[in-house]
């Protein structure tokens, strides 16, 4: 069993470490934080490893977990947004690695493509767009809000108390769950609906003749019923052993057969988000009849906002 005391101690140590790491003007104590935090993380992972690995967890897990957590900590402690975004990419990559560990290859790559590739790049663009231009005297100057964290103590304490509570509950709660969830489905059950894939595999293995098509697949018995194009001459073919349902297949089948509506809705949401983003980010038109006197200068738009504040 995992030593809960070690976990809690690691939480405390991690909290203190994180406190030292959080950005502050002239933060000279960050090495202490790094040591404490790294120690806490290492101790925690060690406790995990001692408490019982196996069951699909190997060294890669610990490495990737260490990487993900370390990068995440760095992300929230780094005072420069660009670096924070880059560290976040690292977190995403580590997560993707963990997904591969969990046999979710499709999601791993989707994560990298969508997150690391698309979303984070957008973030980077926006960060660069919105960064105050460094003037010549202080090329490295940080803005005040980047340089200091607000209420670090309260937030850290609250966060780690939450973490400790969550972990405590988790270990209590999952103790009651079966060591392995009973799989209610036959392996490769999706083959029953993936007749095209089966047909291609059979054809590639020359198990069916040209002109024959697969009518029906029995995933349990690993057989398929092939028929002539003319409609007669039914026969049963055994499936090749290497015919397996890939992760992508499974996800696809599940998505299209079980959640088609949700999928459509997701599409609609994405489109609406796109439209919304366009509308929001569109430059405000100046010289509208309603406010024709305001010019195209930042000063004026400022005054417009002040006016709006007054209204609020």
């Amino acid at each position, binding site marked *: 069993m995992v030593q809960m005391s070690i976990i809690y101690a690691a939480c405390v140590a991690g909290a203190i470490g994180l406190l030292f790491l959080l950005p502050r003007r002239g933060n000279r104590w960050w090495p202490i934080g790094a040591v404490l935090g790294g120690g806490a993380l290492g101790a925690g992972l060690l406790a995990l490893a001692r408490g019982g690995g196996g069951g699909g967890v190997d060294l890669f897990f610990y490495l990737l977990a260490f990487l993900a957590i370390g990068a995440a900590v760095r992300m929230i402690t780094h005072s420069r947004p660009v670096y924070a975004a880059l560290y976040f990419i690292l977190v995403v990559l580590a997560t993707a690695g963990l997904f591969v560990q969990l046999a979710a290859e499709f999601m791993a790559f989707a994560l990298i493509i969508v997150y690391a590739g698309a979303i984070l790049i957008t973030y980077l663009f926006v960060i660069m767009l919105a960064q105050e231009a460094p003037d010549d005297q202080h090329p490295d100057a940080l803005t005040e809000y980047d340089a200091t964290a*607000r*209420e670090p103590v*309260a*937030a850290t304490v*609250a*966060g780690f*108390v*939450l973490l400790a*509570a*969550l972990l*405590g*509950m988790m270990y*209590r709660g999952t103790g009651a769950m079966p060591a392995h969830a009973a799989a209610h489905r036959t392996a490769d059950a999706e083959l029953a609906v993936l007749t095209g894939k089966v047909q291609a595999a059979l054809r590639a293995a020359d198990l069916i003749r040209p002109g024959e098509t697969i009518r029906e697949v029995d995933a349990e018995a690993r057989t398929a019923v092939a028929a002539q194009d003319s409609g007669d001459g039914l026969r049963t073919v055994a499936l090749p052993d290497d015919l397996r349902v890939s992760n992508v297949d499974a996800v696809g089948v599940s998505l299209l057969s079980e959640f088609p509506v949700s999928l459509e809705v997701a599409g609609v949401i994405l489109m609406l988000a796109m439209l919304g983003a366009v509308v929001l980010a569109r430059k405000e038109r100046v010289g509208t009849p309603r406010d024709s006197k305001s010019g195209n200068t930042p000063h004026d738009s400022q005054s417009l906002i002040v006016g709006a504040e007054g209204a609020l």
Partner: protein
Amino acid sequence: MISAAGAQLVLLSSLASASDAAAVRLNVPVEWIVFAPLLAALLCGILALRTGDARARYSGAICVAGIGLAFLTSVAIAASVGYGFAHETVFEWIRFDRLRADFAFFLDPLTSIMLLVVTGIGTLVAVYASEYMRGDRGYARFFAFVSLFIVAMTTLVLADNLILMYLGWEGVGLCSYLLIGFYYEKPAAVAAAKKAFIVNRIGDLGFALGICLTYLQFGSVEFAVIFEQVEALRTSGAEIPTAIEAIPFLLMLGAFGKSAQLPLYVWLPDAMEGPTPVSALIHAATMVTAGVYLIARTLPLFLLSEYALPTVAWVGCLTAVFAATIGMAQYDIKRIFAYSTVSQLGYMFMGLGVLSSVGATFHLFTHAFFKAALFLGCGAVMHGFAGQLDLRRLSGLGRVPGWQIVTGSMLVACLALAGFPLTSGFFSKDMILAEAFVTAGPGYRAIGWIGLLTAGLTAYYTFRVFFRVFLGPVHFTAGEEHHGGHGHHFHPHAPGAAINVVLIVLGAGAIFAGWAGVGGGHHGWFGSMVHHSTAAYEAPAGAAHGGFFSNPHQWMMLASSVVGLLGIGVAAYLHLYNRAAAERLRRSILPVAVLAGHKWCVDEGYDLLVRRPLRFIGHVCYSLGDTLIINGLVALGGAVPRLIGAAVRPMQNGRLQGYGLGMAGGLATVIIIVWVML
């Protein structure tokens, strides 16, 4: 004591009288008495609402027709009912659980008398008013209300159960309210109307509670059922429960309110703010006698209690003398007659109390004539002299051309009121006073003497008015309703035909109505009528047949004549021959006179003791109770969250992170709580 006397009395309830007078089948549509005036009221009401409709001038005729039809029906019914009784259900009204109160009529001779008085005087007053009210903006409205009043009053009289009677009772109160406040732009009229309604309501409360208690005790509110049980109770000789003895006292309260007896008389003098025909009809002849009628109708119930009737007698007696003293010190003619009405109503209650229901009813009957004549005469004066009613500003009207008929009828009516021999008032008053000496009861003899004294006072103040206003040197000033300019000489305009005819009829009634009761006791027509109603009783035999001095019915005629003439004589000396002496006398007893002139400050006392404290409580309830305490508590309840809010407000600073922090803390707390609990 009554209980002792009661053993000698034979109560003839309606059912007992059924033995010699079987139930009569009416061949007259009795509901016309109610519906004809109702129709008139509706028509006049519609005319009243249509501002500027020229047809409004027909409303007087409509009203006269409606009430006249009711009168004719009443005559037919009186003839048809005779000495019997009848029962007629018009429609079902309230029927719930075991409570039965239908819109049903109960007719016996008492009802007939009341119907004749109400519709008869009503018709006369309507005729009078059709001239008197001419030119008033609310002409149609007036007749709508008068017709409505007749509806309510006849319902009251005809009701076969207490709840329907209560309907009529409240209905006449409403009409009284509406008619007193007829000139609603005068604040005094509005206040008087309100006062009348509210004081009446206090009495009505007693009435309503009396109804409830009656139902509790007898399981019904219908007269027939109640009286049957009363009879059974009396004959069984069982002890009478206290609750039953309480019933007459509650009903009495209602009667005192409606009939303006102590301590609830205060509204009636103020009610003179209404148009004079209304004062004549409602506040003299009919409505105010409803209390007398109520007690007469429920007399069997009153006989069940040892103390009920003596209370009635004493209250009546005290009211009579009390109101008479106030009346003596007033200057406003109408008010004098208003107090006179209070006083005369006191006589009627006195009569009921001393077990002279014949006398009381008889006095009610005669009083209706002469008091209506007096008020209508006053009205004619008021009409002719632009609202002038102050007897110091009017004199010698009898010699002004065109006023002879008014003077004549006033004289007759005054004589009747003063109890001048052989006028109607003389007979009825004597009957009551004599009975006070005949009946054994607590202090009844004293009541008789006080009554006699009051008769003298009555004669005095009545003729004070008459001698001042109609005799003596001719001089008069116009009232405030006269809008002629300076130098424009005021010409009183003499009353027209309608007014004169009505005055003649009423004057005749004031003299001759008394003959209906001649014969004393139950022997005259009137006596037999009452004798055959629910108000019947039999006087102890023997007392009425002694010698002259041992028979109060005989020597009372002489005594009251002497007292009455004495009063008239004093009035003649002070107000006709030597008016200066009156002024001297007044100055010598100035405090008393002023106090009496201020109505013994009863109004002020009520204001100070009842109205102001209640209103003060209202203010306290509102400003302290509602706005301070209750709203304060509510605000306190609301303040607890607000205090907590203030405490945690720094967290709610609008920064997203603050909320996030709270969320994390909350989540952690929840988890830990669950953890601890599991």
